[in-house]
């Protein structure tokens, strides 16, 4: 193992393992793991990378202490574990999966509590009675800071023992603060989220150790390669590439059909259509028109192609869309220089 191996911690077991491996495979960085019980693996496409499987909850700590260079974990964990020493950088903020929200939820039976202001008033009522609101949570820092920002102070945070959602009915807490993606678990436990009580929207993100990336140009370069692939691959999800055969007399005539009005801008490709002559057996003037358009404009673009006489229309999803520069890579350099 070379000293300049870039170590990346990724979630092992739990809900994030499979989507993380899927993402890496999609961007062209398929992980090779000789067997499931091994907690180190490699990426054949990038031999300078070593993959280490960790519990998602521990990945922030691993990156912070510097035992790995990069890590993939939930943004909620990153915010909760943040040491405020700028040692850990969020290198790529939204990987597009593992989406959830950190919410405050109270028992269904609290019919008088719907909003955060109701909760605030309840804490003041209880303060008069020398009673303190007990909130069970694994997100102590985020919950405390959020409530403090809303000038709510008469509460205490309780450690989660086992199934947190059961705490209010078991009686060791009054309410909970936890992440939820669909709300099903809350409902099953007779809990309801408070209106205006969503403290954080989270999804999986890529984090890195500032000092290690700064110290090693090789590691930084590999990180930038990974960012290029992730960014271009996630960017590609937004676009579709369409090619159609259109009849016409010249390149310019066909070109006009796609650029004559401003409404066509979104249907005519990122910059404009690419047009090439089609060489046919019979002496007829056919041109191939290719446009790359936002995915949600697919049917509108097809309609337009048909309207101008297009036929044989094929649509592909690109694997990557590379822009002139890699935004997240530039952002990383800026963060390292701060």
């Amino acid at each position: 193992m070379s000293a300049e191996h870039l170590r990346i911690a990724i979630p092992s077991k739990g809900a994030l393992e499979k989507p993380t491996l899927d993402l890496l495979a999609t961007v062209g960085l398929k992980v090779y793991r000789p067997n499931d019980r091994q907690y180190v693996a490699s990426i054949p496409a990038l031999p300078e990378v070593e993959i280490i499987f960790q519990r998602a909850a521990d990945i922030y700590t691993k990156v912070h202490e510097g035992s790995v260079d990069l890590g993939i974990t939930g943004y909620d964990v990153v915010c909760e574990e943040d040491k405020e020493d700028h040692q850990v950088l969020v290198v790529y903020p939204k990987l597009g999966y593992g989406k959830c929200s950190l919410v405050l939820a109270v028992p269904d039976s609290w019919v008088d509590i719907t909003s955060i202001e109701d909760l605030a008033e309840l804490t003041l009522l209880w303060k008069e009675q020398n009673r303190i609101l007990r909130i069970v949570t694994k997100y102590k820092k985020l919950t405390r800071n959020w409530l403090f920002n809303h000038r709510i102070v008469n509460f205490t945070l309780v450690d989660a023992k086992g199934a947190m959602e059961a705490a209010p009915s078991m009686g060791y807490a009054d309410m909970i603060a936890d992440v939820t993606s669909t709300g099903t678990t809350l409902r099953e436990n007779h809990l309801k989220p408070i209106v205006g009580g969503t403290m954080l929207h989270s999804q999986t993100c890529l984090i890195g150790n500032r000092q290690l990336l700064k110290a090693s140009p090789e590691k930084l370069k590999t990180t930038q390669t990974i960012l290029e692939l992730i960014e271009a691959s996630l960017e590609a999800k937004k676009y579709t590439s369409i090619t159609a055969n259109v009849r016409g007399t010249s390149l310019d005539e066909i070109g006009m059909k796609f650029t004559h009005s401003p409404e066509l801008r979104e249907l005519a490709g990122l910059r404009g259509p690419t047009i090439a002559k089609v060489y046919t057996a019979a002496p007829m003037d056919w041109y191939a028109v290719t446009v790359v358009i936002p995915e949600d404009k697919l049917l509108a673009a097809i309609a337009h192609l048909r309207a101008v006489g297009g036929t044989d229309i094929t649509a592909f999803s690109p694997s990557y869309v590379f822009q002139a520069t890699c935004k997240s890579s530039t952002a990383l350099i800026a963060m390292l220089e701060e």
Partner: protein
Amino acid sequence: MTGAISVTRVNSSISKADGMPDFGTEIAQLRRYVEQQLLNQFQKHGYQLIEVPIVEQTDLYLRKSGEDIVTQMYDFVHQNRRLCLRPEMTASVIRAYIEHFPTLEPQKLCYAGAVFRYDLHLSYRQFTQVGVELIGMKSAIADAEVIYTACLSLDQLGIANYQVVMGHMGVLLQFLRNLDLSDRLISLLLASMNLLDQPNGKALLIEQLRENYPLAPSAGALADLFHGMDRTTARNSILKLLESLRIELNGNRDPQEIADRLINKLKQKDQTHKITRAVEFMADLSQLRGAPHTTLKQAEQLLADYGIDAQPLAELWSITDLLTQFGIREICLDLGLHRDLQYYTGMIFEIEHAPVGRLGGGGRYDDLIQTLGGNQSTPATGFSLQLEAICQTLTNSQTHTQQKLPVGLAEVAIALNYSANPVQAFLLARELDKIGCSYLLTMGDEPQRGARWQITAQPDGLFRIIASPTQLEKILDLPTLTKHIRNSL
């Protein structure tokens, strides 16, 4: 590929924790000097020194200090107990007072100590408060006394050009309570007081409240349903309704409490009118700032317009009168003055110094002792000065630095160079201690400002003594030298 993961040690040196200050030797010496001067001054005024712990139970501050302080506390759980670093001194001093003087007799206490507030906007999260608490007296003279003590102690340090800004919590609190606003709303209003200093502040504040606080009732027609009902009937109807809907009220709360709060919510009228009135009054109040006489006249008019009891103004009249008699002229009244601690009930004040800002402040807090467990209502008033701000003021003023620094050295009678013969030097120092002569042990021969003699302990056991300013030089042994010094003093 191996399975072993080695931990790379990223940090090899340890820096200080964020926001925690180190004080270099010069500043440290100045701080100690200033703190001592202040405490001496307080003690001359009959205040007795008290020391309280840095770690307190968090509950001490949850009871009455208010959201501004509580949200800034270093609050932690240790051995299953919720503790915090004290964010201010008064609550600690009062807790100690109740423990040590259970009969709650009048006391004058003074203190100095570090306090901690986790505020990202503050460059330092540890600072030092030096102050007094005057417990058991409810009179204008007590309030005037603490302000006078604060001013006098600044004068003694040579600080000039400060201004006493005085206000009164009673005016606003009384108005807001008369409006029958909820505690939550009062807290939100008080917290946004500073918005009113901005142009268009009134509109901004109303807008902010409307966004964050449901001013209008949510239930509409349902409210009418309960309008004519007395509380018990309404409560029983609600409980029956919930029962018929099979909503069980068993979530750690008293069903009656839930029903009562629900009725309150349903019955709540549109509060926009009340809020507008409160904000307008607050805006009018914050305009009242200036010379005492004029400002009080204007305030009397305003309170009469709103039909509010003018007792707080009478108190401010008396305090201002007394301060003028004490010779304090730089008084400014500010009826919009608001401090970040919520336990104040009467007069509040701050001492402002133009370039540095706030040097300290305080006020009357007549409910705190009972809230913290005292068995009867006990009035109290006090203030604290911020040591860092005062030292900043002193280091800013060059003249002071030259006159009074280095601390203590001005009174040094002897500069004693001990590097060549420490044993002999220490023996001499012991003799000097016995006769109460001040000295400074030095490593070199450079003359010390203000020292009457420069003495060097020589390797041969003798002392070379040079008198100032004659530069007359003598060589003496220890007994002769001691005798010589004793006779000369």
